[in-house]
């Protein structure tokens, strides 16, 4: 039991330190660069891609943060933007489904790719196939959720 408490305290500390060291720079960088033309170009380019799963330009920035850095940090920006821009619930749902299927694309993929000899096949399955799967699941669930909501309203 004492061992458990010790693990909890030490683990919580390193978890919080990690979140702090990632979340503060992400938020500061977002705030400083959000208005710049270069940042808008990147977000607009990303928005063109994620439009195919039903995400608006407003939702593109939080989705990009989650896709690159992870669900927790993306979730943080989603919470910020729900407050700031009053993101519609449908958009939050789509972002959550997409990001719960694929996030932290570089870090998470590398962790597993490091286990096997490098090949394009491995890269295909771990990265390309997973993103395609995420898009497919997002489209299917959004359609299903839309159907249920419409039926409930009738």
């Amino acid at each position: 039991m004492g061992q458990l408490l010790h693990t909890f305290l030490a683990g919580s500390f390193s978890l919080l330190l990690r979140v702090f060291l990632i979340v503060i720079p992400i938020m500061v960088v977002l705030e400083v660069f959000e208005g710049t033309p270069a940042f808008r170009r990147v977000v607009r380019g990303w928005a063109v891609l994620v439009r195919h799963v039903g995400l608006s330009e407003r939702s593109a920035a939080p989705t990009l943060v989650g896709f690159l850095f992870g669900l927790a940090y993306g979730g943080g920006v989603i919470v910020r933007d729900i407050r700031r821009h009053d993101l519609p619930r449908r958009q939050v749902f789509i972002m959550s489904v997409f990001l719960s299927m694929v996030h932290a694309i570089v870090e998470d993929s590398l962790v597993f790719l490091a286990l096997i000899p490098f090949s394009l096949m491995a890269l295909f399955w771990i990265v390309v196939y997973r993103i395609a799967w995420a898009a497919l699941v997002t489209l299917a669930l959004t359609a299903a959720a839309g159907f249920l909501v419409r039926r409930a309203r009738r």
Partner: protein
Amino acid sequence: MPEPSDTSPKERLLRDLRTGLRAGLVTFWELARVMVPAYGITLVLQYVGAIAWLARAARPLMSLLGLPGDAALPLVVGYVLNIYAAVGSMKALHLAPQQIIVLALAILIGHNLIVEGAVLQRSGMNAFAFGALRVVAGLAAAALAHLLMGLF
């Protein structure tokens, strides 16, 4: 575009830095508040042997993925803990590269379900529904990959 005279670029940068820092601290607090209790629940589950129990229950599923029953352990470790812990317990298994890819897909889609579920809950989603979705969709993606790999 001409700058409005009341805010110089330097002032604007300072204002953005302050806003960013404040947003960062608020987000940090939001995440900390849900992640620490979720992490505690995770540790208790591990402590009471829930991981070993779930891994035993999941053993029969592994053959659908072309994996040995032992592969259920890293899968469940990934679900409850995180991908690093899952990779650690995968190393002991000596799987073939294709098997590693199939198992990796299931874990990459479903992992750290309690902590990440708590974060999803903060943005108004249902943590249980999303946890179930990630387990099912992850296993389905892995099974499909296993099937497709067999064809080529």
